């Protein structure tokens, strides 16, 4: 076990290095820079822009800039944002809470609802419920999020007035209730789209398991159906869901860019979008590294959990 973990850790570090190099190169080679936003202003001439560019160290050769960034990174200095001058970790950290709130809620709803739909669909395969649920889940998966979100806002906020038209909280109100009120629309919109994935995996996993011999044996032993399903089938069917959870893990902190824009949710997705739009290199690199680490951590945890839970899988 330990040698496997060490090997995986080593691989992860190498990967992170590759990702950082590729990411840095792409970011700096893409046209435009952090000072493009001032190009039209009468207040700053191209000479001013060049001067500030030089002061930020942006005219140094790329490998030099990368080495500088890497060296600081290894010492724990993630850099400071070009936009507001605060530490990159602080900028990211201040968005993490909002992201986590939204994504955790959405994933929880998606997982619970999705698994429930999937299980029922597997048990009553090809029934009306199954067909409707499958179609419904599939349709939800196929709707572009920003469209879905805008329609939801229009119906529930503008027309009915039940829910706020976005934002994380009412200005001045920090209560949990207010947060939940604002969380409903974005979390549901996200969950409905994600639900389909959980439902499909759960359904196929459940079908896999139901078709196994040991289920037939359990039935043959005369056990009641609900016992067969819940004690034998369900537990085994849930195992592959761990993989799904592992795959969803990075999105937990990556946020949902579109939903955050439509619902004015101050999360990581939108931070990433804005940072890229303004070419805030330090913040973009910070988020990139974080999300890469999340992806690797997620797949490692999923692999480990699966191995722990299913003794048939060997760690090569």
């Amino acid at each position, binding site marked *: 076990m330990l040698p496997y973990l060490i090997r995986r850790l080593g691989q992860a570090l190498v990967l992170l290095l590759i990702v950082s190099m590729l990411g840095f190169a792409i970011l700096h080679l893409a046209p435009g820079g952090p000072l493009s936003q001032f190009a039209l202003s009468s207040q700053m001439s191209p000479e001013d822009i060049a001067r500030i560019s030089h002061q930020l160290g942006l005219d140094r050769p790329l490998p030099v800039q990368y080495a500088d960034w890497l060296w600081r990174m290894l010492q724990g200095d993630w850099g400071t944002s070009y936009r507001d001058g605060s530490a990159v970790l602080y900028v990211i950290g201040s968005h993490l809470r*909002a992201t986590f709130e939204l994504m955790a809620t959405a994933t929880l709803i998606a997982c619970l609802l999705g698994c429930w739909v999937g299980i029922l669909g597997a048990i009553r395969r090809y029934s009306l419920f199954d067909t409707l649920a499958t179609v419904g889940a599939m349709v939800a998966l196929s709707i572009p999020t920003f469209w879905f979100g805008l329609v939801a806002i229009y119906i529930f906020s503008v027309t009915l007035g039940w829910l706020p*038209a976005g934002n994380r909280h009412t200005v001045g109100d920090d209560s949990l209730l207010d947060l939940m009120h604002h969380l409903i629309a974005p979390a549901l919109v996200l969950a409905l789209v994600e639900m389909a994935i959980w439902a499909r995996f759960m359904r196929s996993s459940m079908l896999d398991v139901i078709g196994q011999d040991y289920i037939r044996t359990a039935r043959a032993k005369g056990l009641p159906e609900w016992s067969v399903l819940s004690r034998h089938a369900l537990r085994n069917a849930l195992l592959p869901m761990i993989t799904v959870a592992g795959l969803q893990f990075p999105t937990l902190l990556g946020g949902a860019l579109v939903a955050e824009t439509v619902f*004015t949710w101050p999360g990581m997705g939108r931070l990433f979008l804005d940072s890229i739009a303004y070419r805030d290199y330090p913040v973009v690199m910070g988020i990139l590294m974080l999300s890469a680490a999340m992806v690797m951590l997620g797949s490692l945890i999923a692999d480990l959990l699966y191995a722990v839970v299913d003794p048939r899988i060997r760690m090569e």
Partner: protein
Amino acid sequence: MSDGFSGVTGPTRRGALAMGVGLAAGVSLPASLRAAQPPSAPKGQVVAGVSQEPTVFHPLMPGIEVDQGVWWQLFSTLWYIDPEGRFQPDLAKEVPTVENGGLSADGLTWKVKLRNDAKWHDGTPFTAEDVKFSIDLINNTAFRARNRVGHSLVHDIKIVAPDEIHWRMESAYSPYMSILSLFFIVPKHALEKASDPNASPFNNAPIGTGPFRWGERVPGDHIQLLANTSYHGRGPFLERIVFKYVPDLTVLYTQFRTGQIDYTGIQGVLPNFVKEAKTLPGRKLTVSPTASVEHIAPNLEFGPLADRSVREALYLAINKKGLIDALNYGLPLPTESFVPQQAWSFNKDLPAHVHDPAKANAILDAAGWKRGSSGIREKDGVKLEFSNSTTSGNAVREQTQQLLMQDWKAIGALLRISNMPAAVIWGEFWQQSKFQSVIVGVNFMLGSDPDVTPRFGSGAIPAKGGRGYNTYQYQSKEADRLLAQGAAQFDLAERKKTYGALQKLIRDDLTILPLFQSVISEGTKEGLQGFSPNINTSSNCWNMREWYWA
């Protein structure tokens, strides 16, 4: 040297009225805004929605328009220009003029008397030391200043008293008075200790002399400012201002509708919502002109666009009225000049645009541009074909491009649309004249000064190594002559003539194809008093200290 504002001598009331035109620009205030009385103590809050996030809180560092909106609350200037175009003192006791001895006759010596009752948010009194520090800071080469235009000419700053400061200018520079109207003063005691002038805790916990002080900021979400009860001027009448960042313009409008936002700032209400917004109960909409002129910017060194007859034909073929009335819902003002219509230097006698595709065709035929087999004109092997770019995601501009495409096809010109995100288009593509044509809105004025040497001077072409932003690559000896002349003149009447001639020249040469002067539609909740657009300040949030709830 005459009375009235010339930029070097200060404005005199007599002079301003005698000129008859607004000194900078004039927008009259509707009487209804003066109805109720403001409260005796700050009351209530205003949530201002903005579609870009303010991130810069050091007013001397590079910032965009939204940042300016926040600076106006936290900081003060020596003087500012009100909506009628008059200079009003703020931190200065009075605006320096030749008459009151504040300015020397040659414009080189400045003697500014300051208020002695202004205090920084932490209680420290404001003194002349702070003014000197601010000017020195901006001239400090290690500091990432926005620009040093005007400030670099200041030297010999003498503090004769805590409330009086003198300095000398290296050369007389007309626009400096209005440059100072946008120059926020920063505290010496808070900033002098910082080892790196660019990075100090001040940047995220600013201290100013403005009507509001720093409350809190949640990055990516909002900024909260609290009333400064020891403010030296009129107001503030609000307890709190919250600048809420709402990135999507449709959502911004929706939140305005549902009441989550009390005021829609930048970029305001989209034109297609204006009509509906005007009918919303409990909401008021104000449409006000900005100094930005929307135009088609040709790269004058590119093939067909270098030919003036081509530009003339293209201009004639534009259905400007359709563009303004249909796509922009009739809101912006058609214009022929790069100067805003409210400015003193505006030339109203420029030839008006006519939509005449037949004449356009005739001009092109006469100039030797013959239609090819595909219907596209050609001359000497060069096709009348070019690309047009703008920021992607700007719905109205994209519609404009497609309308232009169809109108120009009718005269045998082929337009290709190639839009890109803002960071890309305004990078090298724009700055180094790598474009063929661009639809863009530009504020040509420097403060309220019409000196456009950096935009049209032949020595200001970055692509040719010049210093400036003449990305059109316009080169004209006559324009250079007029520009040099205007920058050296001090008499307002003479400058008006010079810049009038310049506008006519630019219009005749069709250096740019002017479309309209932009407007901004801002919504306020009913009951919110005091909102007053001001084309002379950098933000319509300039007077939030005077806002209150009726």
